[in-house]
């Protein structure tokens, strides 16, 4: 798969809640809002995984959502990246000992970039996207 130049400058993200507390969600939307304005880098929230390049996954993956998360991941076209936003998707966070979780996220999806924080600040999310771009560049160089 050859990555085109335009791909790096127009990362479209799809946001997937797997049982998060909403904190990460509002920070993701706050990131999209004018104060941080990542659209100047081509980053945009889209409404369908089929339009997306990056999957922003939040939350510790509840049992009801696990299969749906896998399905949505499958529906994202290649090349794709998965960003795990928030601590509870990485280690469970405060939800470390629940009976209804299938997480953390990397048990369900292959994660490329982890953005820790509960919730991470918008700056951190933008930094994570930059890291995702770096990873894409490395992928490109490896070909």
């Amino acid at each position, binding site marked *: 798969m050859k990555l085109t130049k335009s791909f790096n400058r127009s990362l479209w993200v799809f946001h997937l809640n797997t049982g998060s507390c909403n904190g990460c969600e509002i920070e993701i939307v706050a990131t999209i809002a004018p104060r941080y304005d990542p659209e100047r880098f081509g980053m945009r929230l889209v409404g369908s995984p089929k339009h997306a390049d990056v999957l922003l996954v939040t939350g510790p993956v509840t049992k009801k959502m696990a299969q749906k998360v896998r399905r949505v991941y499958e529906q994202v076209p290649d090349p794709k990246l*998965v960003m795990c936003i928030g601590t509870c998707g990485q280690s*469970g966070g405060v939800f470390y000992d629940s009976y209804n979780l299938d997480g*953390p996220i990397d048990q369900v999806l292959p994660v490329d970039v*982890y953005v820790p924080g509960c919730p991470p600040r918008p700056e951190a999310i933008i930094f994570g996207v930059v890291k995702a771009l770096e990873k894409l560049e490395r992928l490109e160089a490896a070909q």
Partner: protein
Amino acid sequence: MSETPHRTPQEIIDLYRTEFGAGILDARITERGEGVRKTKGCNIWIRLDKNLLKPAIKKLMDIRFPHFAVIAGNDLGDEIELLYILSVFYGTKFGEYMVTLAIRLKKTDLTVPTITDLIPGALLSEREKQEFFGITVTGIPDGRRLFLPDDFPQGVYPWRKDETGIKPEMVRELWTIGRPKDRPVPPVPEKKPAPEEPAAQGTQKTPGGAAE
């Protein structure tokens, strides 16, 4: 709707006592004041006979239409206590009281009549109690599961403290899991067609590409 007169918490308890007599097993008032002036907010706690639940709620509706908040529940060992938490006289300045009607169900007979014919909004709460306490609400218009997944094991009720509660093996200690070991290290080779189950078979992608 004609406004019924406002009453003090003690008057409400007296009304209940005259109406239901010995059916009222316990009644008390708690008060709490906060801030500088310590204006008091009142809670009324009434424990009554199981069969008097619906008449008691009807009685409260006669006093003034209550706001139904939620049904809470306690596992007391042999019995399950259900607390119907309502509030009455909302809209009056500092005159609203929480009214908690508690009934106890023997674990041998965990049935309770539905109150959705009086207050339809109680449906979600009743459905929730069915799946979390294993009680049976008779006459419930919609008895499906609410929060738990469909493949949740039968006969396990998360809020019970006896052997039907959550089993230790059901608990997943997320923090001990760590990163999956069945995935290759970055940088990744060329992509293969994605398998059906990425988690089960491992995939071409790797975790933590940028985290290194």
